[in-house]
């Protein structure tokens, strides 16, 4: 069993038949942006690309600016989509019609460990995303450690339901790859509203695992829906408070594990958040502190990698997470950096100066999401024009709330923008508006 669609099982023979059918339709080009919305079609498209020796590009967002940057990185990139209304400005190839029930005898398809399978991207600090190579072996090793940690290797067929898209590194690893590599099955849908999550869970057999995020879990807790029995709930993308973790476990009679990782290293640790604040590293992974920086190595990590968070090592295999290094922004699993956002803002014709800053979650926000705001000097531009321009460049979750027009920014002698001056200016501008 590889997957379920609306509760109907898709077996390994079906999957292989579908992969071969799709692989035969792919163009000669080497790089593919897999935009398939359906998790099963995404997975077939990924596997077909791998078999056809193509490289999947996995940016965290598909704004026009990011697509433009992708074409600079890989001029031959094409978009494989299952959506007739797809607007992505690349040569588009439609995911072919599959033949329901088509199957071939199962056979092993060997992919060498060092085959380049994908590039994932971090936002970088200069306005250009930084690519990270993911070889097939590296991807597989990472999720095998994960499967072991999550207890997915006990011989039963677990059904994985994800509220996260497969294009996102966490969704890719924890729904698609982990199921493929551990003999478990994922559900093809991407349920959004609480009632959708409930229906998707109910459509698959036990034991079930829900792969989700703090935003979705808060929303589930906030509604009155009764969820079907879940053996395990997985959360990642932002830390979950211990209270919320306990609430999830009690309300849904389940066990909640949080996953910690980074774009560069993949997943490296987990914790049972209702019981402990300490993270436990995956087998073989080690952390090394050097001054203020922490590096990760060992296990599935190919080379020593600096971590972008403030970590405190508490034991050989444990650590505490004290938040992100200040420039990084993570909103609902989408990662960016203030310098990237600032670069995009200041690249807009008519913007004289501008700066983003982080606003902590508002009181009473049920999803508890951090937002960003921005101050801008742009006397020639209207708010509507500037917003329109910005929307083409950055993901919707990073759109500034609010976007404040000011006469000038309080830069110091060295051109830097002291944190306090910026916040004082922003507070005053907000009061005026």
């Amino acid at each position: 069993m590889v997957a379920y669609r609306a509760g109907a099982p898709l077996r390994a023979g079906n999957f292989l038949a579908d992969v071969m059918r799709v692989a035969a339709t792919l163009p000669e080009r080497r790089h593919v942006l897999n935009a398939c919305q359906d998790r099963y079609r995404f997975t077939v498209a990924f596997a077909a690309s791998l078999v056809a020796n193509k490289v999947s590009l996995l940016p965290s967002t598909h704004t026009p600016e990011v697509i433009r940057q992708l074409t600079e990185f890989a001029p031959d990139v094409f978009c494989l989509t299952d959506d007739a209304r797809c607007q992505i400005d690349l040569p588009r190839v439609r995911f072919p019609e599959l033949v329901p029930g088509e199957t071939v005898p199962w056979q092993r398809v060997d992919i060498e460990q060092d085959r380049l399978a994908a590039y994932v991207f971090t936002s970088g600090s200069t306005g250009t995303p930084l690519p990270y190579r993911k070889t097939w072996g590296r991807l597989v090793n990472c999720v095998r450690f994960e499967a072991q940690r999550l207890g997915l290797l006990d011989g039963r067929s677990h059904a994985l339901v994800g509220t996260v898209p497969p294009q996102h590194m966490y969704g890719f690893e924890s729904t698609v790859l982990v199921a493929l590599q551990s003999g478990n099955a994922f559900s093809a849908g991407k349920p959004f509203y609480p009632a959708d999550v409930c229906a998707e869970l109910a459509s698959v057999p036990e034991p079930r695992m829900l792969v989700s995020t703090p935003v979705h879990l808060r929303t589930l807790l906030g509604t009155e829906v009764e969820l079907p029995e879940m053996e395990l709930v997985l959360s990642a993308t932002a830390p979950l408070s211990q209270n919320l973790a306990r609430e999830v476990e009690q309300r849904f009679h389940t066990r909640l594990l949080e996953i910690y990782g980074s774009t560069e290293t993949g997943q490296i640790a987990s914790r049972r958040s209702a019981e402990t604040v300490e993270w436990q590293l995956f087998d073989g992974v080690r952390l090394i502190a050097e001054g203020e920086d922490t590096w990760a190595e060992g296990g599935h990590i190919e080379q020593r990698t600096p971590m972008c968070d403030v970590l405190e090592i508490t034991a050989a295999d444990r650590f505490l997470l004290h938040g992100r290094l200040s420039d990084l922004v993570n909103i609902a699993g989408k990662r960016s950096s203030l310098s990237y956002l600032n670069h995009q803002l200041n690249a807009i014709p008519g913007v004289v100066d501008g700066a983003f800053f982080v606003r902590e979650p508002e009181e009473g926000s049920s999803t508890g999401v951090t937002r960003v705001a921005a101050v801008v000097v742009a006397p020639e531009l209207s708010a509507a024009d500037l917003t329109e321009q910005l929307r083409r460049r950055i993901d919707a979750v990073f759109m500034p709330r609010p976007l404040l027009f000011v006469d000038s920014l309080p830069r110091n002698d060295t051109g830097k923008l002291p944190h306090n001056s910026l916040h004082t200016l922003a507070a005053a501008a907000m009061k005026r508006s």
Partner: protein
Amino acid sequence: MSDKASPLRQPAPPADNAALQREVAGLIVAALNLDVAAADIDVQAPLYGDGLGLDSIDILEIALVVSKQYGIQLRADSEENEQIFRSLAYLADYIAAHRTK
């Protein structure tokens, strides 16, 4: 499509739901801490993207408010879902047609 969907395809004249539109606008502004006045929201403008500029996290917040306030559980797989957030007018019409409290 079921009869239930008809209020969406043929929106009632705006005046019918004007009070509800104002109420829903107020709930959205409060839930999302938007820096616009509820009365300034164009009832015909899209809530997603170009209009009010909401994203999917906002839509989840609105779904929570709608479920608490009006007893409606939204579903993404219904054809109606895309219509619901086309504008404040559509959302209010949908709520009027489906509310259980």
